[in-house]
């Protein structure tokens, strides 16, 4: 990506609190109109990075560009951003209209312009009937809409979302997720979205940046992150239930572990990686074939079922493949009971191989 296209560019960013390094030499370029999700477990620095972009935290070193302006020292309000917080952070003493217009009043905008922008935002978010209410009289979903509206009226180039859906219940979360996606396609702004929820990340993102310990582990499309995780951490983090890992060795284009041999025909090795020696194979529960799907399997084996978790749409079974414990996602209607032997099949093309030392993809 060339710099001309990028909406946000983060260059060699460092952030320290005393002796604690939260962000280390972080580089990230976000394209114009891109929806980028920062994903990671708590404490990985994703919210910190967002606060740095917003200008709410002073960086220790490095630069931040928004558009083609160096905003490293700029005030949050000068950066052309709108921000949505997890706790909504609505001003409790102001009406919805007051909340929406607060930023515009601070910018000394004309009354007519404020009115026009507020009504436009209210229309987009369908909160027109609520304009005279105080936040306390709103439901969680309505509050979060108002919070999004507050970013919307600013006509910002960049929207920053800090776990905006985490405080909502599951149903509302799914609804608002769809609305945010629609909003993005309607407005076409650059959006940076922080979450620890991988479903939000997978569904919303153009690209996902998976963070750990203040560094980006992988920056790629949801599809690539899911299918070709760059390292063990990403492989384990993405997917629910998580990937199965089995330790073994690679020889003659085959993966060999105790009591298990899987030919690796069709597996695309990462560029320049070795083709033999110690390796860890990663198999997603949904990529282990059972029942009717066995026909497309390259290799087969038998596993003994130890626990069954029916979830309606599908069934997770915990089984032992020799002495390797694995879990498998089966069709929801499959009838299995603990103690049964099930025949399973592997698809090397969809498997993942990792170097146990460097933890990188082979």
């Amino acid at each position: 990506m060339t710099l001309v296209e990028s909406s946000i560019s983060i260059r060699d960013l460092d952030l320290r609190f005393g002796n604690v390094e939260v962000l280390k030499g972080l580089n990230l370029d976000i394209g114009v109109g891109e929806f980028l999700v920062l994903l990671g477990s708590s404490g990985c620095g994703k919210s910190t990075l967002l606060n740095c972009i917003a200008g709410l935290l002073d960086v220790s070193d490095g630069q931040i560009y928004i558009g083609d302006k160096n905003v490293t020292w700029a005030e949050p309000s000068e950066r052309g951003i709108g921000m949505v917080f997890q706790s909504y952070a609505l001003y409790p003493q102001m009406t919805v209209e007051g909340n929406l217009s607060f930023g515009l009043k601070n910018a000394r905008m004309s009354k007519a312009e404020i009115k026009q922008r507020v009504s436009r935002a209210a229309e987009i978010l369908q909160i027109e009937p609520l304009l005279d209410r105080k936040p306390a009289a709103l439901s969680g979903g309505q509050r979060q809409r108002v919070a999004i509206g507050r970013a919307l009226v600013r006509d910002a180039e960049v929207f920053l979302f800090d776990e905006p859906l985490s405080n909502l219940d599951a149903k509302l979360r799914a609804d608002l997720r769809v609305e945010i996606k629609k909003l993005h396609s309607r407005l076409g702004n650059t959006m940076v979205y922080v979450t620890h929820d991988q479903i939000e990340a997978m569904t919303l993102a153009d690209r996902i940046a998976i963070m750990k310990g203040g560094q980006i582990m992988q920056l790629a499309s949801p599809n690539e992150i899911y299918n070709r995780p760059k390292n063990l951490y990403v492989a384990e983090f993405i997917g629910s239930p998580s990937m199965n890992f089995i330790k073994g060795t690679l020889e003659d284009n085959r993966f060999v572990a105790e009591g298990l041999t899987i030919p690796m025909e069709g597996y695309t090795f990462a560029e320049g990686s070795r083709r033999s020696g110690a390796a860890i194979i990663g198999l997603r529960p949904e990529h282990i074939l059972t029942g009717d799907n066995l026909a497309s399997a390259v290799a087969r084996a038998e596993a003994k079922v130890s626990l069954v978790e029916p979830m309606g749409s599908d069934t997770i079974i915990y089984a032992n493949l020799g002495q390797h414990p694995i879990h498998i996602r089966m069709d929801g209607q499959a009838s299995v009971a603990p103690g049964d032997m099930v025949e399973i099949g592997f698809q090397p093309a969809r498997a993942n191989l990792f170097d146990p030392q460097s933890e990188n993809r082979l």
Partner: protein
Amino acid sequence: MADTSTRLLDGPRGPKPKSNFSRRNIMLYGTLLLVAVYYAIPLYVMIVTSLKGLPEIRMGNIFSPPMEVTFEPWAKAWGSACTGLNCEGLSAYFWNSVKITVPSVIASIIIASVNGYALANWRFKGANVFFTILIFGAFIPYQVMLYPIVIMLREMGLYGDLSGLIIVHTIFGMPILTLLFRNYFTSLPEELFKAARVDGAGFWGIYFRVLLPMSLPIFTVAVILQVTGIWNDFLFGVVYTGPDAYPMTVALNNIVNTTQGVTEYNVNMAATILTALVPLSIYFVSGKLFVRGIAAGAVKG
């Protein structure tokens, strides 16, 4: 299908019955009543005595209600009781106290709330050192500083004047009030402050338009603390002001301790109640908010 009521057997059913006269309740309310009576008796004696004439007081039945109610002691305490040579009652000193309390309460609360806000939300350089010094200040006994302050006020030409005392009260209210406001502002969600910054509000914009409107409880606490503290102050009042500028508490002391002729207990009692009336009424008016504010300020340290 069988009638469902047949499935109910004998035994507990529905809400559990509560007894108003359980042992627990008797213990609880008994104790509360006892404590309430214990604290109410002195007030009762004061009121009753202030309404009696001197002959009746000499009979010695301090708990009995007045046989003949008279408001003369109250009138005398307010208008003509003697403090030393001066027989004007408490009225003049009441206004002194008002003139001292109102400006020092307002000034100290304004300054301390801004201090607390800056300490809680704007982590400026040296904030921690500043805060430590303030907290330390809260633990220094006042008596240590009495004389140095006399000298300072004299050098500034404010000694013996109301304004000198106002300044002293404002400064001495600072540590505890700043702590109070800082704790309250830290307990407010930080994201609110961040949102206001993104919305382009500055230091004063956030203070006046976002935080102040949601800080009524803590301001009530501060007002109560300061009004009672400053109104009831005796030490600073007697040290830093002259006879013309004495606050009500000093005048009360002078009335009670005047040793001419008989001790007029009824007048003394009336004068004491009059002096205590201001803080007392503040409590009654805003007691609920006070409790709420104390709780709110105490959540986060």
